[in-house]
């Protein structure tokens, strides 16, 4: 299988296969890094995988013992929230075939979504209202902290999906700004 995997600003084109035979190695993984400067050197790793629990990936990678937790991202993108030695990272995983499919039907407007579950404290705009890029639109509260979400573009409020006082899950769409 091939995947495009993104951690921070690094994107890699990854090939992963199950290792045949009876030895301890379970997976063979190789990748090239892709950037604006082109494509980097290929590197390959042999992994002996153990899953002590569904979310835990204990890997002997070329003899080194590493452990990572992988929890599917709540946005349904196929990526994972991955933790390695305490550091948690959102890792994007895209199947290149599906990516091509998705791009064709992607919505061009300015969707505003919440990165955390919480309660909608205030909706400061109405449908049809003209807004500027950076203008505060909506306030979501979680754990006693208020977070103001701003318009990503100049435009008009196309739709509002939530109401003041409602609770929202992580990744939920809040409103749409049309250009």
């Amino acid at each position, binding site marked *: 299988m091939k995947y495009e995997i993104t951690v921070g600003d690094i994107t890699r084109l990854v090939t992963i296969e*199950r290792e045949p035979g009876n030895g301890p190695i379970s997976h063979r993984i190789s990748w090239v890094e892709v950037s604006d400067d082109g494509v980097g050197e290929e590197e390959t790793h042999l992994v002996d995988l153990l899953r002590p629990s569904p979310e835990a990936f204990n890997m002997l990678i070329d003899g080194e013992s590493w452990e990572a937790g992988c929890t599917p991202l709540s946005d349904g993108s196929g990526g994972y929230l991955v933790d390695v030695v305490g550091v948690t990272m959102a890792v994007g995983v895209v199947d290149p075939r599906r990516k091509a499919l998705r791009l064709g039907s992607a919505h061009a407007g300015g969707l505003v979504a919440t990165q955390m579950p919480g309660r909608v404290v205030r909706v400061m705009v109405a449908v049809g209202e003209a807004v500027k890029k950076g203008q505060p639109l909506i306030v979501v509260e979680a*754990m006693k902290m208020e977070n103001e979400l701003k318009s990503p573009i100049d435009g008009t409020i196309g739709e509002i999906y939530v109401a003041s006082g409602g609770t929202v899950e992580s990744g939920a769409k809040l409103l749409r700004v049309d250009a």
Partner: protein
Amino acid sequence: MPSATTSPSALRPILKVLVANRGEIAVRVVRACHELGIPTVAVYSEADRAALHVRNAGEAVCIGPAPSSESYLRGERIIEAALRTGANAIHPGYGFLSENAAFARMVVEAGLVWVGPPASAIEAMGSKTRARQHMVAAGVPVVPGTTHAIETEAEALIIAREIGFPVMLKAAGGGGGKGIRKVEHEDEFSSAWRSTKSEASRSFKDDAVYLEKFVSNPKHIEIQVLADQHGTCVHLFERDCSVQRRNQKVVEETPCAVLPDATRLAMAKVAVQAAAAVGYVGAGTIEFLFSQASGEFYFLEMNTRLQVEHPVTEMVTGIDLVRAQLRIAAGEPLWFSQDDLRQTGHAIEVRIYAEDPANNFAPAPGRISGLREPGGPWVRVDSGVYAGYEVPIHYDPMVAKLICWGSTREEATTRLIRALREYRVRGIHTSIPFLAAILRDPEFQAGNYSTGFLTPERLHRLTQAGENPRIATIAAAIARFEADTRPARASTTASSSSAWKLAARPGGAR
């Protein structure tokens, strides 16, 4: 008006304790009670049925909907729950109603034991201006400034000029790092005055504001005290809580690495004086600002309750502060003297929050998909969560505290770094990598850091550290690949790769 210590000399056995709190501190109090053989009652909001304190307590009573204002802050419901379950004492933990004098009074009037100081002591220390007046009268050094709320902006500006800029504007009713504003120059004064007033009015329902000299680059040092109902008060040395972000403590340690012995003793003496001045009973903390430059220290405020960071004091003194609170509340005289107390070794605490340090510390509630807490020698975990627990959106984002002891500060630090490396909280972002980066910082390791330690530059550096994209790439690739190519199934055992392979072959599953 009955005092919280109606009959100071009589023993009043505690038969069952209701813990009026949630999270790690409720779990902590339940543990202390069970060690004393005292049954416990937890209270919980509708959002907290699954909380750890409900699982650990002997009984549990639901006291209302999710918002604290409808549950954990409803004193009358809590007292009703105590009376109904036969609890004859209430431990408030920290936060919520712990420093609410009216609640303390209601508890006593209901015939219950209040595990805390008398309402009068809470009141004396509850207003910052009143506390300053008490302290000045008791001969305790306070930061130069006013001891009364200032009426007008014009009056305030005159005093500010006298003291000299920069100055601090503070809400008299404030606390927890809120309602504080630093004013660098005279031309900022007017807007700072107005915003402090309005925040004070909004947050504390009291717009009284007073003024203090700004002490530059101080350390935040506090002294733990314990006082019984019989007039004995001891101190349990200091804690250095100078690593702060937005006036919130992040790392706490004891002893302070750079406090001269003479200053420690002077500070401790003043703290005992301060407690005595308000007739204090139970566990309390006197906070000071300590100027490394001048060697002087000033009273800041008193916390009339258990502190979040009490464990580091426990680790170096061997005194269980919650057990002590309960025994004192039952009327026992202190069973040790000041001379019995020693600081042995070094202890450091870090607070683990459900937040994303790399994303401006955004709160990160959600389901903890996997959890492995560190263990081994001198590692203490005071946790309020478990694997599978959904961290709710309604409350403080602290999920656990991690405390390590070492025979030296260096040993405690390296042990804490090791324990953080072992700590796995999966499915949500936490402050763990940020905390590990602080502990590795050379200036932290030198020990002479001030409350200005977390500069924007350092904060940026320490929140971006430690990612391992290579391992994350491998793990995510395997996770996706396995999900895409395997039939979904619940894991029934730790499955090794060879078992995987067998499972992949027809009929090969053992």
